[in-house]
């Protein structure tokens, strides 16, 4: 018996409980999802009557005959990019401010993390009211200041408007992560930079950011995954519309698998593609994290 296999054998009892839980909660449902995606099952009909279609659903989705699928992929990527970019910038800004603030930090932190305490459903409804063309507070303010009535959820604006809500929801989490990172950085290099007369920007660009890189990557990973699976707030705000303006993959999955269609087989195929897409992106980010650690 080699030393390696002895180590593996010794680890088995410790890893097994976790592996069993993972199997029960993740692998078995994922395998079932994959199986359903290979059928043409429609919700409501007897389960026994499900036709096996093999890769039919995937061919329909990936072969280009389903125009809305590719639209929803593009929307998901755009939405995730906007939300990730926006929340990283905003979160970093808030973290830097909080890190530099002495008095009142607790109060500011409480205000900042408030969106975290609000459920996506409530947040979505709140923003829907704020975006309302006729009665919304945003148009009320815009009306007073500029005499404007903006259609926030129009075909042209809806994706950005929903991304703003996404940023509002994600930024506090990002800010808290960055703040923790900033506070754990060693003081020495910063003091040396100050003595050398480095500007704030130079310090940030050449010290803070490189030292925070692993944290930035972890936060990006979480935010991208969260943005790709966003559903609740977008559903409440626009239901994917108008038209297909905000039809991100989870919304398209819901519309197909439940909503007004109930074609669970194809809906499961969309869900599986979403999982693969998320895993691929996560894989890239994890590799980047590993490279950052090794560097």
């Amino acid at each position: 018996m080699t030393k390696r296999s002895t180590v593996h054998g010794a680890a088995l009892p410790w890893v097994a409980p976790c592996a069993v839980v993972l199997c029960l909660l993740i692998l078995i449902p994922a395998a079932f999802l994959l199986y359903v995606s290979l059928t043409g099952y429609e919700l409501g009909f007897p389960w026994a009557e499900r036709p096996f279609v093999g890769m039919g659903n995937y061919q329909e989705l990936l072969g280009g005959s389903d125009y809305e699928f590719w639209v929803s992929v593009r929307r998901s990527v755009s939405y995730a990019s906007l939300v990730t970019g926006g929340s990283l910038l905003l979160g970093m800004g808030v973290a830097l401010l909080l890190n530099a603030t002495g008095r009142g930090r607790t109060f500011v932190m409480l205000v900042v993390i408030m969106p975290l305490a609000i459920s996506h459903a409530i947040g979505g409804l709140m923003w829907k009211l704020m975006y309302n063309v006729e009665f919304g507070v945003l148009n009320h303010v815009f009306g007073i200041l500029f005499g404007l009535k903006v259609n926030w959820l129009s075909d042209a604006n809806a994706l950005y408007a929903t991304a703003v809500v996404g940023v509002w929801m994600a930024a506090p989490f990002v800010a808290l992560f960055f703040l923790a990172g900033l506070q754990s950085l060693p003081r020495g290099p910063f003091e040396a930079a100050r003595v050398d007369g480095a500007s704030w920007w130079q310090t940030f660009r050449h010290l803070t950011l490189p030292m925070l890189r692993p944290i930035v990557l972890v936060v990006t990973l979480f935010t991208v995954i969260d943005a790709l699976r966003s559903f609740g707030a977008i559903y409440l705000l626009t239901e994917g519309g108008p038209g297909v303006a905000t039809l991100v993959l989870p919304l398209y999955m819901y519309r197909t698998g439940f909503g007004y269609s109930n074609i669970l087989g194809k809906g499961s195929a969309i869900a599986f593609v979403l999982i693969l897409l998320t895993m691929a992106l996560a894989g890239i980010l994890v590799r980047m994290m590993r490279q950052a650690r090794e560097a």
Partner: protein
Amino acid sequence: MRWRIRAALAISVVLGSAVIAHAASADLRQWGAQVKAKHGGTTLVVSGIPHPSTEAFQAMTPDFTELTGIKVEWDLIETGRIQSKQFLEHTAKTGRYDVNMYKGASVVEYMAKGVLQPLSPFLTGELTPKGYDYEDLFPAARETLGMAGGAILGIPTASESFFLAYRKDLFQKYGKTAPDTTEQLLELARFFKDKEPGLAGIVMRAQTGRTLALAWSLLTHQFCGSMVDQKTWETTLEKPETIRSLKYLLDLLKAGPIGIENYTWEEATSTFMAGKAAIWFEATALQPWLEDPKKSTIVGKIGYAPPPKGPCGRYGAMAGWAMGIPVEAQHKDAAWAFIAYMTSKELAPTYAAKGGVISRISSLDDAKYVAHNPDFVKALKASYEAAANLTAKGEKWVPPTDVATRLHERVGTHAGNALLGKETPEDAVKAAAKEVREILAKAAVKEQPAPKK
């Protein structure tokens, strides 16, 4: 002092019970006793949506429990989710619900999927109160909302049609009269658009997708168009008459408020109630809210009119909600007792008085009901007649197939592209027709309604 309070409470409970017992006729009390003997203590679970009819039923539930001993739990689910939820429970055979409130337009889909129990044996059985009078339910509603494959699967609980409501004060101010034709409606909507600060000419549901398709189908027949020929089951979307009706709808919506492409009935109604629109083209079931001072700022300023007459006649929708018993229900008899009580002829005036959405012919002739708003009742009758015109042609507002919802979803998505200016109406109907053909080819059920008056 304390015993006096207790005594007063006891007296009021006794009096309260007496009032309940007195309110019900001898027949109903006898029926209640019979039900109580067999099913007293049962707890029913009813799946429903937030709706004026649900509110009325909930208000009537304590009396039902008092009379029959059957307790009722309501599981209220969002309108857009209830169907999937009920199908999910059916597939999983959970037997979670004893009563399903369902969208009447989907009755054929419920039949195709075998979700609901046929109700004929219950209707003729002893659990139906004397004088229930099934024939008194609106014939078009019985047929459209409750029947599929020749079987009675549900009882209409909220028979809605669509009609116009307009601001009488504004119409008087500008010397206008209620629209009667599609031409007049368009003209008036355009006239009132921005006539006063922030005023929309018209509001109605127009959210891209299924909602827009439903709005469009309110006007197709007026122009001799339709989405599907319900005899041959060929799509008729590309007919010039259907395209004309779409163009008319798009013109009408241009007189609507900014962002109408996101309007469901909810936004349309709240905008009208806030006094920000001159005309409202929506479901009759929502009328009580327009006249509710807690919700509306235009109470007493509203006139009503039936849906407009087009070049090919006046047609209307028969839509709404019904209640049925899932095949897996655990308490089918008690469930029927609940449905029968709530939809009985004897309690129809109570239901209407509590804001319910009527489904009985006798309610339309009920003096008290008519007296509370004669204009509304007149327009309501005319709207039902317009709906009956469609039934007389042998067509249903929603094509009677199990894939109707999916069909509307696709048609409404393409019509939405036309509304957003991304496609011409001609291209939109061409794309929609292609998808409709594919959907219809996969349909399990395509009924052929016979012309009925």
